[in-house]
C-alpha cells in the first residue's frame, strides 16, 4: 500500500513536470522566432509620422529630466538619423483615456506639429477610437508653437481660437487623453528646444 502511494505521488509529479517541461521548451522556441524588439517596434511605428530613419535623442546633461504636467508625459524622443534639423518625434502618453492612458506619436517639425499617429491605445473601436482618427488629429496640425503657447484647450463646441480643439462627440474621454498627450509634447518642445529650460 505504502509503495503504491509513493509510486502514485512520483508518477503524478513526473507527468506534470514532463508536460510543463515540454510546454516551456515549445514556448522558448516560439519566443525565439517571434520576439519583438521594442526599439525596432518604435522605429516601425514611427514611420507613420516621419518618413525616414530615426534614432533615440540623447539629451545633454541637465536636460534629461522627464517632462510631465500631471495629465501627460513624454516617454520617448527620437530624431532623424540624417541631416534634418529641428525635427522631433515624441512618444507622448496622455491620461484620462477610457482604459487608463494612451500613447501617441507626435512629429514636431520646425515649431509646428505636422503629424500625429496612434502608438498604443485600447479605446473602444468605433467609439473612443474616433478620437484617434486623422480627422481629429488634424486640428492640432500647423499651429505655431511659440515659447509661451499655452497648450491646446479641449472644448465641447466648435473651436473658436487657434489653441482650441473641439472634442469628438461620444469620445470625450479619448479626446481628453489625446489632448493631454499632445500638450505634454508641446511642453517638452517649449522647455527643451525653444526656451532651453534646465530642470
Amino acid at each position: 500500500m505504502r509503495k503504491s502511494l509513493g509510486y502514485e505521488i512520483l508518477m503524478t509529479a513526473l507527468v506534470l513536470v514532463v508536460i510543463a517541461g515540454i510546454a516551456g521548451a515549445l514556448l522558448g522556441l516560439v519566443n525565439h522566432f517571434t520576439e519583438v524588439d521594442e526599439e525596432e517596434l518604435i522605429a516601425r511605428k514611427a514611420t507613420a509620422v516621419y518618413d525616414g530613419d530615426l534614432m533615440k535623442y540623447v539629451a545633454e546633461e541637465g536636460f534629461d529630466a522627464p517632462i510631465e504636467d500631471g495629465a501627460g508625459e513624454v516617454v520617448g524622443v527620437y530624431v532623424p538619423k540624417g541631416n534634418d534639423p529641428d525635427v522631433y518625434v515624441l512618444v507622448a502618453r496622455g491620461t484620462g483615456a477610457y482604459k487608463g492612458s494612451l500613447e501617441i506619436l507626435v512629429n514636431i517639425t520646425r515649431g509646428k506639429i505636422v503629424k500625429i499617429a496612434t502608438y498604443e491605445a485600447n479605446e473602444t473601436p468605433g467609439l473612443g477610437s474616433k478620437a484617434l482618427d486623422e480627422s481629429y488629429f488634424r486640428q492640432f496640425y500647423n499651429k505655431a508653437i511659440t515659447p509661451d503657447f499655452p497648450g491646446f484647450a479641449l472644448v465641447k463646441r466648435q473651436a473658436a481660437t487657434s489653441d482650441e480643439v473641439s472634442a469628438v462627440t461620444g469620445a470625450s474621454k479619448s479626446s481628453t487623453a489625446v489632448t493631454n498627450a499632445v500638450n505634454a509634447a508641446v511642453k517638452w518642445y517649449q522647455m527643451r528646444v525653444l526656451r532651453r529650460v534646465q530642470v
Partner: protein
Amino acid sequence: MRNDRLNTLTNGIVKSNPTFRLVLGTCPTLAVTTQAINGLAMGAAVTFVLLCSNIMISLLKKLILDRVRIPAFVVIIATFVTVVQMVMKKFLPSLYDALGVFLPLIVVNCIILARAEAFASCNPVLDSALDGLGMGFGFTLSLTFIGIVRELLGAGSFFGMPIGSLGNVSMTVFILPAGGFLVYGTLMALVNFLSGLAENRKYSASSHNEKKDEKEAKV
C-alpha cells in the same frame, strides 16, 4: 463510420454551436464583437487553441492521471494560447491590441476546457481533432456574424469599410455592451427558430416516408 466523423465535425457548427446553442464563452463573445474583424480573429485564435489542445489531450489521455487532469489540461491549453499571443503580437499587432486581455483569457475559455474534459479526454485523436475544428468553426462563424451585425448597425461599416453614408445614421448603442446583449439575444432567438424549423421539416419528411413505407408494405 465516415458519417459519424462528419457528424462530429458539423456538430459544433450547427447542432451544438458553442455560442448560440451551448451558450459557452459569452464573455469574450460580447466583449470583442464590436467589429467583425475582431470577432473573426478571436474565433481563429480559439479554433487554433481548440484544435491543438484537443489533439494533445487526446494523445496524452492515457498518460495523464485522472486526479491531476485539470492542471495538466490547463498547462497544455495555456501553452497554445501563449503561442497564439506571441505570433499575433509579432505579425498582427493591431489585432493583438484590439483583442487586448481577451486573448490571454482564452486559457479559461469554457468551450476549450469543456471540449477537453467532455470529448478529447475520452475519444480517439482524429475525432478529437474534428471536434475541435467543428467547435472552433462554429465559434468563429457566430462571432463573425455578431460582429458584422453590430458593426453594421453601430458604425455603418462592413469589416472596416464604410458603406455609403450609413455611418451618419449609425446607432452607437450597438457597439456598447448593452447593444451586444441585444444583438446576441436576437440572433440566438433567430438561430433557434430557424434550426427548429429545419428540424420539424426533417421530422415530418421522415414520418411521411414511414407512412409511405407502411403503405407499400401493405400492398
